[in-house]
């Protein structure tokens, strides 16, 4: 039989691992937020939910494809995206590549499909879930569609920090007001 001190020692190692995993998640995300480049992505929210993490709005981004004349792309193949900002301040695609770029503000994601005919590669941005208070997620979807109907100038966008392939979704805004606040109004 193993001594209880030995069991306790192993348990402490296990407990440290249990603490390390979420702590490392926090560290990785915080690094991206503090040192990454911020981009605004135009988006449209809808409202699903996750059994463990709660309610979230699923974000459909306007940036979801790019034309590619050089090579054919396979489904699930990694794709590296570089962004630039348009005249209104929103992110658009600057460049796509199969190889990891030399810059730090690139995003890594996967190809969803490639259309030979139009030579367009489709992908989805990986930061597409924004977690919200359970009473506000559905209201957020409604608020967005209402804002879209009311005026042409209304925009919903996600503020995302990008660093070394990872994107961290910081907040979602409707007309520059954080969505959670916008819903309360």
């Amino acid at each position, binding site marked *: 039989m193993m001594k209880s001190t030995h069991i306790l020692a192993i348990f402490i190692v296990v*407990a440290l691992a*249990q*603490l390390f*995993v979420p702590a490392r998640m926090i560290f990785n995300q915080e690094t991206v937020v503090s040192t990454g480049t911020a981009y605004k992505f135009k988006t449209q929210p809808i409202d699903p939910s*996750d059994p463990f*993490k709660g309610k979230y709005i699923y974000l459909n981004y306007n940036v979801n494809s790019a034309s590619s004349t050089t090579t054919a792309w396979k489904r699930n193949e990694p794709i590296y995206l570089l962004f630039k900002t348009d005249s209104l301040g929103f992110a658009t695609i600057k460049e796509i590549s199969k190889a990891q770029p030399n810059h730090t503000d690139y995003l890594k994601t996967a190809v969803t499909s490639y259309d030979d005919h139009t030579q367009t590669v489709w992908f989805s941005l990986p930061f597409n*879930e924004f*977690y919200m*208070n359970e009473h506000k997620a559905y209201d957020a979807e409604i608020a967005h569609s209402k804002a879209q109907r009311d005026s042409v100038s209304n925009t919903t966008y996600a503020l995302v920090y990008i660093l070394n392939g990872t994107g961290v979704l*910081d907040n979602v805004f409707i007309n520059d007001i954080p969505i959670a606040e916008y819903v309360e109004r």
Partner: protein
Amino acid sequence: MKSKFSTELTELVKNNVISEETALKIRTYYQTEQHDGSSKLFTVFGVLGSLLVGLGIILILAHNWDNFSRALKISLAFLPLVLGQLVTGYAIFKNKSGIWKEASATFLFFAVGCCIAMISQIYNIPGDLSTYVLTWTVLCLPLVYLLKSNAVAMLCIAFATFYGAELGYGFSAFPQVPWIYLLMITFLMPYYLRLIKTQPEANSTSLFNWLMPLSLVFTLGTFIKAYDSFEYLAYVILFGLFYNIGSLPIFADRKLRRNAFLILGSVGTVFMLLMASFDLRWSFVPETDLFLSKDLYVTLFLFLINASVFMYLYANNLLMRLNLFHYVFVIFTLLSFISFTLGLVTIILINILVLVLGLVTIKIGADKYHFGILNYGLLIISALIACRFFDTDLSYIVRGILFVSVGIGFFLTNYFMLKRKKSNVKISN
């Protein structure tokens, strides 16, 4: 102890039916028995309590308290985890009772999942469900051995199975072979084997006896993807393996309802054969790719394990010679490979095989005076006829007569067995 029972004992001693010493022995026996029973009950309630509290905390935090600051939300995410670790550490340090260990380990299990989920929520990390469940389960697997916790072991089997199915069948993403599932189950295997060895009669062991094979049934399909024929064959071999494992003395000597391997093996075999009796989708068409595929190696591996269990049963005279269930895996393997040349004859052979299995089961039921087994045998034959109802050109009259005869068969066999059983009881009296 109930007072009526106690008075009865005093009465028996007074009338010299039992001695004072025997009465004392009976009293002590029931006292320890009662103590064991109540401690088991407390363990069950302790585990259920921890399970509910753990799930409750997950739901409360999933509400997403968006007026709290990020730092406060992070602290709240870590609170149940640290609390769970402290209580579990205390239970180990003080070498507390099984109830303490089971309850604290169960709580810690949910606290780990809760903390990771909350951090994902706070930072909007998109959900890859299989990776999340994998991280959660791997972080909790050592708790099974450190705290000898049955509850955490069962949770780990359930979560590992969920991971295997989610990743392997590709519910939410591109399907991948879940090799890590096998590692997790292998890791839990020594714990399960120890339970079978040390507490074969315990209810918790019976639960494991059901969980383990069910988990394999759910996930086997994820390892066999490319060829339908291998899927049929691998499942028939797996169920045959279960049947043969269920025939090992360690399982066969227990009550039937505790012998999940035998029940699953038998029902699964019949189900697969009935499916195979419709068409030749499972027949092997010779092509080189087929014989170099991963599917072949997985099926071959299962076949070899089954063959070794079969040899063990044979060497120790544990095979019932007429019981075809033991041999189905060999017969079906042969049929799979010759079906290409034999064609429809194989389908007829499969139908005959199911019929014989039904008859064998009826015979076993009759020999053991077991109404359950007897009627299960009749059910196999009825199922076979029901299946043929859909795809044969037999006239309605013939099909009707077949059903009526099986129905009469049900009545008659049960009636005769009841009569035989009664006359046997009379003779023995």
